[in-house]
């Protein structure tokens, strides 16, 4: 039985899909999409699903994650119905569906929730930092004295574990939604065999290169690789002590070079994305949901304050170093806490997992087919 939600299109408006009702199903978008296959077709079909209110069908769909918003679909749409933006809205919607806490939906649909959540985490972080921080040595920069490593690192790991739990539990819900009946009967060995898909796409976002505009992949890869490097450096800092230290290493130290790469790559790509969204030249930047701005602003300030702090440190300016570090943490906590499990950044997991699940579905179908053949042989024999 198919259930229909006649108010679905309206509901989706809050996630950014404002023009879905304009579509008259000509299929220009699907025809020109470089990413569609016979098995996975969009965006026209999804425009139609939205118009029909097929919310349940969309909840169980994997296709929104297979769209990388090249924007080709949007250029020649005769109805100016913005099919690419609809697919983007569906990803926002699905993110809120996968999230079991309900916070994601609040963040996507309510400005008050966004502002209050960011503000709360920002000021709470500052409050915690300044209540638990150590002495502010003014003769020379002693960052570790100001922010004792054992506290920062252990709080960091607990925070990370909470985020990982939230994100992975949402991924599990995604698995339940998109795999549905396919999940039954897939042996563990297949899950392991296909892990390569997950790892490759997580690390490279190779599918984005199918888009007509290749430069977007590079810009995206800059953010992604910068983030990954920064993530690794933070996590190993408990051993390496390259960052949170009273004895900063020399400029040529690999740790410092890696930090510089991470900061500059992310700052460059984020700045460019902000300029793109302001100038609206590319289809992908034509429409910006408030959560897109929330992500870009938090990320930009996180990277900027991080970089600024290390510059102050390098210049031997103790007080500016400590305060910028506090600010850096105050931006980092809402960025990671709200974006990774609940909003835009969760796609770092949903995208590669979608391709992984798609492979699993294909394997499940192959197995069903070969089983079918065997049973047919059995009948004829």
């Amino acid at each position: 039985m198919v259930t229909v939600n006649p108010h679905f299109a309206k509901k989706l408006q809050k996630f950014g899909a404002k023009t879905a009702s304009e579509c008259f199903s000509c299929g220009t978008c699907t025809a020109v999409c470089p990413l569609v296959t016979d098995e996975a077709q969009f965006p026209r079909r999804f425009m139609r699903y939205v118009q029909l209110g097929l919310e349940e069908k969309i909840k169980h769909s994997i296709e929104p994650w297979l769209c990388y918003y090249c924007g080709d679909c949007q250029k020649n749409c005769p109805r100016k119905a913005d099919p690419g933006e609809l697919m983007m809205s569906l990803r926002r919607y699905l993110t809120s569906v996968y999230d079991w806490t309900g916070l994601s939906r609040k963040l996507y649909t309510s400005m008050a929730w966004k502002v209050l959540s960011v503000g709360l985490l920002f000021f709470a972080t500052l409050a915690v930092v300044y209540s638990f921080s150590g002495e502010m040595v003014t003769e020379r920069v002693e960052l570790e004295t100001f922010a004792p490593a054992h506290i920062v690192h252990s709080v960091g790991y607990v925070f990370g574990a909470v985020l990982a739990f939230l994100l992975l539990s949402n991924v599990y819900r995604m698995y339940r939604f998109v795999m549905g009946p396919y999940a039954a009967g897939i042996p563990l060995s297949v899950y392991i065999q296909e892990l390569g898909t997950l790892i490759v796409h997580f690390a490279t976002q190779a599918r984005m290169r199918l888009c007509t505009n290749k430069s977007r992949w590079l810009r995206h890869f800059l953010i992604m690789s910068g983030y990954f490097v920064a993530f690794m450096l933070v996590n190993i800092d408990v051993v390496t002590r390259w960052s949170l230290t009273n004895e900063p290493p020399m400029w040529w130290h690999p740790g410092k070079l890696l930090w510089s790469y991470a900061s500059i790559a992310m700052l460059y790509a984020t700045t460019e994305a902000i300029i793109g969204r302001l100038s609206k030249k590319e289809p992908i930047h034509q429409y910006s949901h408030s959560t897109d701005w929330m992500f870009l602003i938090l990320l930009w300030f996180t990277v900027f304050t991080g970089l600024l702090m290390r510059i102050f440190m390098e210049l031997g300016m103790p007080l500016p170093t400590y305060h910028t570090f506090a600010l850096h943490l105050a931006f980092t906590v809402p960025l990671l806490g709200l974006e990774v499990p609940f909003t835009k950044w969760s796609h770092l997991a949903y995208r590669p997992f979608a391709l992984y699940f798609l492979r699993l579905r294909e394997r499940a179908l192959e197995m069903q087919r070969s089983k079918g053949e065997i049973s047919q042989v059995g009948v004829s024999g």
Partner: protein
Amino acid sequence: MGNKSILVVGGGISGLTAAIEASEVGYEVFIIEKNPYLGGRVAQMNQYFPKLCPPNCGLEINFRRIKSNPRIRFLTLAEVTGVSGQEGDFEVKVKIHPRYVNENCTACGKCVEVCPEERKNTFNYGLDKTRAIYLPHLFAFPMKYVIDAAACSKCNKCVEVCPVNAVDLNMEPKEMTLRVGSIIWATGWNPYDASRIGYYGFGQYQNVINNVMLERLAASNGPTQGKILRPSDGKPVERVAFVQCAGSRDENHLPYCSGVCCLASLKQATYVLERNPDAQVYIYFIDIRALGKFEDFYAKVKDNANIHLIKGKAGDITEDPATKDLIVVVEDQETQKLMKEKFDLVVLATGMAPATREVKAPADLVYDENGFVVGGAPGIYSAGCVSRPMDVASCVEDATAAALKAIQSTVGR
């Protein structure tokens, strides 16, 4: 006492109808036509609805009515440059471009044999060429040659060879003023300029043509004597695609439906199969809009096994540079497959843009956002496709109505 004569601007099917209807009930009528011949777009058709007649069938009888009617005067190569005055007393300025061929012409064609210069044949939408001195088309009315001044090198050879002294290279443009009581504006339509739809490659790929060009290819007096051949290599076509709504129902181009292009493509699909019964025709559509009683025609064409109606608008057309074949990509919404098919010829079903879309008329008219005439000053009426897209039969009805309005306008004073 006001002026009782009527001016008709445009000598296509609408203008001719309005002029003849008004004159046959006793009114003096002037027709101003910018082409060197009367008959407009209808003259360029191969066959037209509702009865699929060739154009000379419908036009000839109108020309005969004009010839036998002393109350109609027509000017070809003429355009209105200004209208002043008011209902019942308009003063109309007309500019007449030189034909360079006078009344003596017997259409013997000796001039063409000696003419060294060529021009694009506009009657055939540039599919072939004529000499600089040319007969507009086989059934041209008036049956007189004309010189394209832009192509002519004034070599004087035609002047020398003409046995009746009909060529005069020194003709000058003329201006004249007409005084009329009312005006009918019937300047018709242009096919939407498909080169603006960049992704369909019109004007870029030789074998992408539009629907009016296919009418010429199918016409026995056309550039290929009615054989449907590919422009790139003259090969008979085996696989033809019709792309519906090429620029129509499109917010980036013409936002409206012209209402005739679906039937035109269905009709043209039959042209292709009449000439090559083994040809395969694909019609890519958003919706087939065969309005009114033409549903029957659609039903008949639909049943032909060689005509494939595919629900899905063509997204993109590319050319194989080696063979000049065209690849059309489309989402087939019935089979749910992505189609990438190769064709010899692609026909873009372009819609109707009013002649007043680009250049507004030198008269007091009111337009909608697409340039169609929706009204005008008292005493000025529009008729035919300058008001809205329509087929020939509707144009005839609309023009008859306009004739009555023009008459009422002069009688009222």
